[in-house]
């Protein structure tokens, strides 16, 4: 087996890699914050069945769900300048750092995925709950705010948690468009030292720790929100 793996190198490379995880976390943050906003807007369009916009969202969602993240990333990276520059007279392929293309892709991707989660969660609240709200004299909006939305949040939480972890995993792809993230750094350490394995082992470990941490967090919040499990004094 020779010198393929050494614990010393593992320890040595660890601090060199860690700071680059920030890039992946930034992608995750943007994708989540703006993905939620976009996802809610799309959910609104779907709930209200707003003409034209509704048809657009259908196509958009099936595209985002039907193509691999890597393909979307490359399409945006090469396609967005070709699309935008002639219209706005800009030159974003030069002006934008690669990470902006990563944000754009991930936000668009998350908007689609999260809207599916949100929409499904709202539809998952039994219709009797809505009718009960109306029957006590609340408006549709009041019923949505006070009854449907809180329950939908509870329903959406587990798939949202899985999606959150999934986005983080997918964020490891951004190095292919030139973002120097933890994967990009692992790769460059590999080429510089001639030893690639340790860096990727570190990456894998970090991803495992993050995933487990995120799952535990979502599980904890889920239990807090679980009306059936709330203890009665």
């Amino acid at each position, binding site marked *: 087996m020779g010198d393929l793996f050494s614990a010393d190198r593992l320890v040595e490379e660890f601090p060199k890699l860690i700071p680059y995880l920030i890039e992946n976390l930034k992608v995750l943050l943007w994708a989540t914050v703006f993905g939620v906003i976009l996802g809610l807007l799309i959910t609104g369009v779907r709930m209200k069945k707003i003409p034209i916009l509704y048809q657009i969202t259908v196509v958009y969602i099936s595209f985002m769900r039907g193509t691999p993240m890597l393909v979307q990333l490359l399409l945006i990276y090469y396609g967005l300048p070709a699309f935008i520059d002639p219209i706005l007279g800009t030159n974003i392929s030069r002006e934008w750092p690669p990470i902006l293309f990563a944000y754009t892709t991930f936000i668009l991707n998350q908007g689609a995925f999260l809207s599916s989660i949100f929409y499904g969660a709202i539809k998952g609240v039994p219709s*009797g709950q809505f*009718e009960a709200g109306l*029957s006590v*004299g*609340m408006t549709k909006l009041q019923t949505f705010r006070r009854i449907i939305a809180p329950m939908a949040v509870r329903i959406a939480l587990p798939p949202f948690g899985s999606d959150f972890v999934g986005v983080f995993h997918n964020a490891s792809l951004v190095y292919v468009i030139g973002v120097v993230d933890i994967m990009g750094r692992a790769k460059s350490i590999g080429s510089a030292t001639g030893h690639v394995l340790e860096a990727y082992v570190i990456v894998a470990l970090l991803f495992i720790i993050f995933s487990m941490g995120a799952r535990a967090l979502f599980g904890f919040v889920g239990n807090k929100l679980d*009306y*059936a499990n709330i203890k*009665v004094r």
Partner: protein
Amino acid sequence: MLEIKHIRKSFGRNEVLKDVSLNVKKGEVVVILGPSGSGKTTLLRCLNFLEKADSGEITIGNKNVVIQNAGRKDILDLRRKTGFVFQNYNLFANKTALENIMEGLVTARKVPKKDARNIAEETLKWVGLHDKADYYPSQLSGGQQQRVGIARAVALNPEVILFDEPTSALDPELVGEILELIKKVATKGITMIVVTHEMTFAQDVADKVIFMDGGVVVEEGAPKEIFYRPKEERTKQFLAKFIIPDNMYYI
């Protein structure tokens, strides 16, 4: 007090209510009988616009609404004059028993929270569940949930409470106590329309019994008339399906 005129409602090609009219006086208890699928639930749901009828006219108290012209405000006004007790309770799953009762008072009627809490506690006591105030629906039995459902409707002090088969999702041994509670609501003088298959209950509390079949009111009258001297063949056939005491109508 409550009057509906010429209500029609179709689902697609299926005409479910075919020109139904009905008159209920203040404080009256009206029981609606009829086979499954005859449109009883749809009629109740049209009354508070959970379902929008195709045409007709509804008057509750001083509020008159012609279906075709009904705006958002009209619908809200009518709903705030009615309470609804559902077959499967439909308690708010994310709210405790107490909060279930408070919700409509606070959010819809803008009753100050403190007053709403008092009303809710009073009403919960009245239905015999003062010790379950902080329980969530999932922690209550079916009978207890329906008590809360009834309390939720009663606390709003509506002009009329609509009951849609309030006991038919319950275990048989719990039916009696819920019927007792509904009788107690009746003795408060609240106007009620009750869809039920409980014939003894209907006999006991109804001021008027309505028999529906195929989307029309086939026959209506005092319980004595409907149970002992039904005029229509369809009413007779329907009643014959229930186990009827000897002194009542039989074929």
